[in-house]
């Protein structure tokens, strides 16, 4: 259903499962750098359901973090979300914009990309929030941890206190008040009650002595504790969708498991949907209900965990799965995929399967743009951007092994 061909004629939200909270269609993000246009995210489509953990997995440089940032409109210059829709289910919001922006509303869904900038910003916190990879650099070093969490609580409170919530956020806090708050130490954006809530949240994420630790600065926390605080901050707005971008990569192995357990416990308690972004297939296998595999800015295969892990269709997914060491059978099964991740420079991409130059099963069919095919007639969830979903591999059509060496300049000098 979510063929790229459908994008042009589409009106309204894509069809999907009734439990969907998020439906993303053809999301594209470009970076306009001095070296040229970088297609970091290329026509990405997926859905996220109530209370599930959706995993996005890929190597570094595959565009998964940019996808996360694109969802909550935090792509910095020189990057820009250039196309696509992010349909988010929120009945109140849909009601508010049904008349003003009919294109942006479909049933209970709103396309956040079509909403005004201020409203998009206001969705951060109560609708979407994010846990970042490196907690140490993701918290302001000169503000106490409790204060930073209390800010997130306060944002949420001010938004819900006012029925016209989407606009109340940016108003009511101007320069004058800020200057007064800065000069008078006892005043602040945050109130005592939001600070108390911050302490509760710290307790909830398992930080001992939360009341004392709330008044400490990030440099006084260990990495694992700080990531817990970061999660507390992300939960402060009681978000519908929590995006976790490599939440354990910067941590020690022993701490990683604790953080993952914490995330899962919290997610089960609150029923929050989680988008889990990682390069670690182990994390995916352990945490996720459904998964999308990213390569060169595209989701090359997606489906339920068992679809993707047990019956992978795309040779890239197969290669990726082949590259994890098997604990039961530590024989040398580690087979890294040959070649490099493409540079994603627009001029070097060409209209073909981006994986074809590394693919052991590349065929002449792969030299044209590939759309998402239904990979499994039994399941309407499993799709792959690979011709092998439709046909068998045939030696007769295979590309000669040196096809790309002959036709393309070697660009492996960086």
């Amino acid at each position, binding site marked *: 259903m979510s063929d790229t061909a459908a994008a042009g004629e589409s009106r309204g939200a894509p069809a999907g499962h009734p439990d969907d909270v998020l439906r993303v269609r053809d999301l594209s993000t470009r970076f306009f750098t001095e070296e040229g246009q970088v297609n970091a995210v290329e026509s990405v489509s997926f859905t996220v359901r109530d209370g599930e953990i959706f995993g996005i997995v890929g190597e570094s440089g595959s565009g998964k973090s940019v996808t996360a940032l694109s969802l909550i409109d935090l792509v910095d210059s020189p990057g820009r979300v250039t196309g696509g829709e992010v349909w988010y289910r929120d009945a109140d919001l849909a009601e508010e914009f049904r008349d003003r922006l009919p294109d942006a509303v479909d049933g209970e869904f709103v396309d956040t990309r079509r909403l005004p900038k201020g409203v998009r910003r206001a969705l951060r916190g109560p609708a979407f929030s994010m846990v970042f990879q490196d907690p140490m650099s993701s918290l302001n070093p000169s503000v106490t941890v409790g204060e930073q969490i209390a800010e997130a609580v306060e944002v949420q409170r001010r938004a819900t206190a006012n029925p016209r919530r989407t606009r109340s956020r940016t108003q009511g806090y101007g320069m004058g008040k800020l200057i007064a708050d800065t000069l008078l130490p006892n005043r602040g954006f945050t109130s005592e009650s939001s600070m108390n809530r911050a302490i509760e949240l710290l307790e909830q994420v398992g930080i001992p002595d939360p009341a004392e630790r709330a008044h400490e600065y990030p440099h006084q926390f260990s990495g694992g504790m700080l990531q817990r605080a970061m999660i507390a901050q*992300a939960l402060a707005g009681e978000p519908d969708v929590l995006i976790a971008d490599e939440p354990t990569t910067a941590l020690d192995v022993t701490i990683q498991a604790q953080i993952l357990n914490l995330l899962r416990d919290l997610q089960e308690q609150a029923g929050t949907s989680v988008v889990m972004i990682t390069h670690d297939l182990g994390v995916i296998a352990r945490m996720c209900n459904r998964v999308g595999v990213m390569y060169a800015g595209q989701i090359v295969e997606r489906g339920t965990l068992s679809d993707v892990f047990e019956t992978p269709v795309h040779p890239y997914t197969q290669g990726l799965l082949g590259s994890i060491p098997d604990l039961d059978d530590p024989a040398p099964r580690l087979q890294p995929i040959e070649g490099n991740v493409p540079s994603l420079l627009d001029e070097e991409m060409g209209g073909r399967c981006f994986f074809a130059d590394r693919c052991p099963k590349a065929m002449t069919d792969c030299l044209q743009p590939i759309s998402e095919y239904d990979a499994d007639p039994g399941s309407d969830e499993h799709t792959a951007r690979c011709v092998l979903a439709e046909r068998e591999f045939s030696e007769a059509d295979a590309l000669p092994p040196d096809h790309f060496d002959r036709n393309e300049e070697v660009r492996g000098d960086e």
Partner: protein
Amino acid sequence: MGYGRFLLKRGVQGVGVVWGVVTVVFVLRFITPGSPIDTVAPLDASQETRQRIAEELGLDQPLYVQYLDYLAELLQGNMGYSYISSIPASVQVFQKLPATLELAVAASLVAVALSIPLGVISATRRHEPADYAATSFSLLGISTPNFWLGIMLVLVFAVELNVFPTSGRAYGFGQTLAAITGPEPFFTVATAWLASLFLPAITLGTYFTALITRLVRSGMLDELSQGYVRATRAKGLPETLVRYKHVLRNTLVPVVTVLGLQLGTLIGGAVITEAVFAWPGLGTEIIRAINARDWPILQGSLIVIGCGFVLLNIAVDALYAYLDPRVVAE
């Protein structure tokens, strides 16, 4: 380490630097060729007269005795007497100090009030016309000698347009305050005071406006690229708070340090600004003292300026530690 201990440590270091300043001034007197007697004694003074003057000034004592005497006198606030007017140097220096402070404070106010908004606008609207205007202004500002700027301002606003006086200090801040209850009409006094202060304050303040604009701009660009900015936005904080509570505050930490180091430049700039506007402050007094070889006045001025620098830097450190708690922790 607590905040109090941190300040105490800085204070002790400050006393050390003050002692160094005082010692350097003492040493300067001795590398000065010629004897102070030559300056004080009449040209035709007899050997006995000279001997008597040497005894009076303590110049017949061994060097270390002179040094200890000098320190003891300083501790009692005695910095010697002007060779020219015989007024105690401390009295003369402290008489001239308020005018200089007034000028420096006015210039700093101008600089802070203009530069922080300029720097913030420049950084948040990077590569937009406002940024180009602010960066051009700041480049021009740090490249223009302030005495020449002062002369050009006089040329335009005093000579051609005749809206400000060319030089002099009409009233002091204290006199202006006194005029609220005094017999002179307050409005006239206040206007004259501000009018005479205006061009000197702009002259002295421009360099610092430009300097701080540059520092705030580059610091803020640096800070905006930090990971926490994105995370702070991700939790939905209004952009005003992201920019000012988080980013600007962190930007100001290094800016405050640099400004502490540049206080000397502010005082040096005040000296030459005073020369341009015939402003009756410490700078004019220093130049007069050098030309008249009135060493006690020069020494007194150097000591007062040095101690002022040390005190202000302790204040800056205190502010720094307040803005950035990590400083105290280290």
